[in-house]
């Protein structure tokens, strides 16, 4: 998996941040290593410092420096990495056929749209960020249910991933919100299709966890 050499990859990273995990997970699945720069978000608030704003004008994490460009936000970083990985033996992460590409685009937009309620819910529950606790939890669970319904039908069609015929960058973009939903007090019991999918994701070579996702490798 280390067939692609991407020199000078730098990830501005917060180990507890769900969006940073999205990119760490994808880098690992692709077999890439990035130099990480820790950003002290909680409690430091470093995402609002002038130094960080010079890199990420809106203060969003993560930032992936690739090919000399600072790419801000998980969605953009995932897309760039998927694009870079194409044609290097792991092209399935970003299908080139019109239907497969369209499906990936759809779910990337979902991850950057309705599913952000899950990301915000986790921040409210875990880090005490201001926000409508119950409302975000409800919206986050509703987004997970849309994912559950989609995968339940896909499984019946013999296509157990979100888009295309194998794992794609869409799966990487969606995975963390389900894997971490217990952080905002939504259990996995109500989502059997997502549980099946999670086990498949966990079995991928290069899969890594983050705090909040049980790591069976511990013992």
């Amino acid at each position, binding site marked *: 998996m280390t067939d692609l050499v991407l020199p000078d990859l730098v990830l501005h990273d917060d180990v507890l941040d769900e969006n940073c995990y999205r990119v760490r997970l994808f880098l690992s699945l692709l077999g890439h290593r990035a130099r990480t720069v820790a950003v002290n978000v909680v409690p430091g608030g470093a995402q609002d410092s002038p130094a960080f704003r010079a890199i990420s004008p809106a203060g969003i994490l993560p930032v992936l420096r690739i090919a000399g460009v600072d790419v801000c936000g998980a969605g953009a970083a995932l897309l760039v990495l998927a694009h870079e990985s194409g044609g290097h033996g792991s092209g399935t992460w970003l299908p080139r056929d019109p239907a497969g590409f369209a499906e990936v685009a759809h779910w990337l937009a979902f991850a950057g749209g309705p599913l952000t309620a899950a990301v915000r819910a986790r921040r409210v529950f875990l880090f005490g960020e201001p926000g409508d606790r119950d409302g975000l939890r409800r919206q986050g669970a509703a987004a997970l249910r849309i994912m559950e319904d989609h995968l339940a039908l896909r499984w*019946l*069609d013999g296509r157990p991933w979100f888009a295309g015929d194998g794992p794609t960058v869409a799966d990487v973009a969606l995975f963390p919100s389900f894997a971490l939903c217990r952080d905002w007090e939504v*259990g*996995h019991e109500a989502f*059997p299709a997502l549980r099946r999918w999670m*086990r498949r994701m966990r079995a991928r070579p290069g899969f890594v966890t983050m705090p909040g996702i*049980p790591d069976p490798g511990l*013992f």
Partner: protein
Amino acid sequence: MAERMRPAHARAPAGETADGAGHGAGHGNGWYPLMLSMDLEEGTVAGCTVLGRDLVVWRDAGGQAHVWDDRCPHRGMRFSLGIVRAGMLACLYHGWRFGPDGRCAHIPAHPELSPPPTLRADPLTAAERDGLVWVALGDAPAHGPATGVSAPCVPVRSLAVDAPAQEVARAIGLPAGSRAGGLDRDIDGLVLAAVLPVDRARSMLHLLVIRPAGVGTDRDRRRRVAVWGQDLRDRLEGAWAAA
């Protein structure tokens, strides 16, 4: 929503009734359909809630399903976060391992120690039948879970429904007090539906298609049943939220 179907319990073979899984429903006694068997892969662990009681469901390497209360006797950690190691359920917190009989058999921090027999989880009575994992709550059951179905069942999906189990059961046409039974769904054929009361306001609906002898189960049929379940869920939740 029940207009297109009728309960198929009249078709139940002699000696079994469609409401066999519902005995003692009012007292919490009886068999409860926890999950689809296919959703409990070998060596995996799942959480489940029945009538507000949290359970862990796990399958050992030999394929046997086990159901315990979801609480490690050591520090009270949820077993359902754990993993299966060496044929035992290992708690995620300190790695203590508990065998199928519930007894603690291994403590990683003290590998030389033989844990006392009092250190144990309490296994509940579990069974697998008709493509479902069941648990018996309350009094020891006189017989296994019965759905009245006598042909192989092929899983479709499970759905979480934010409505009480009795509302779900009524909507799909199960007899009062019953948790599982066959439904005749016209072009979709016979469907096994099983309803789990998660708590007073939430339930899980498990759907399987029943495969009569010599008849294949096509993808379209299962897809239609899955979409029907989704539709039913959405209507039920809408009605329940408005009530």
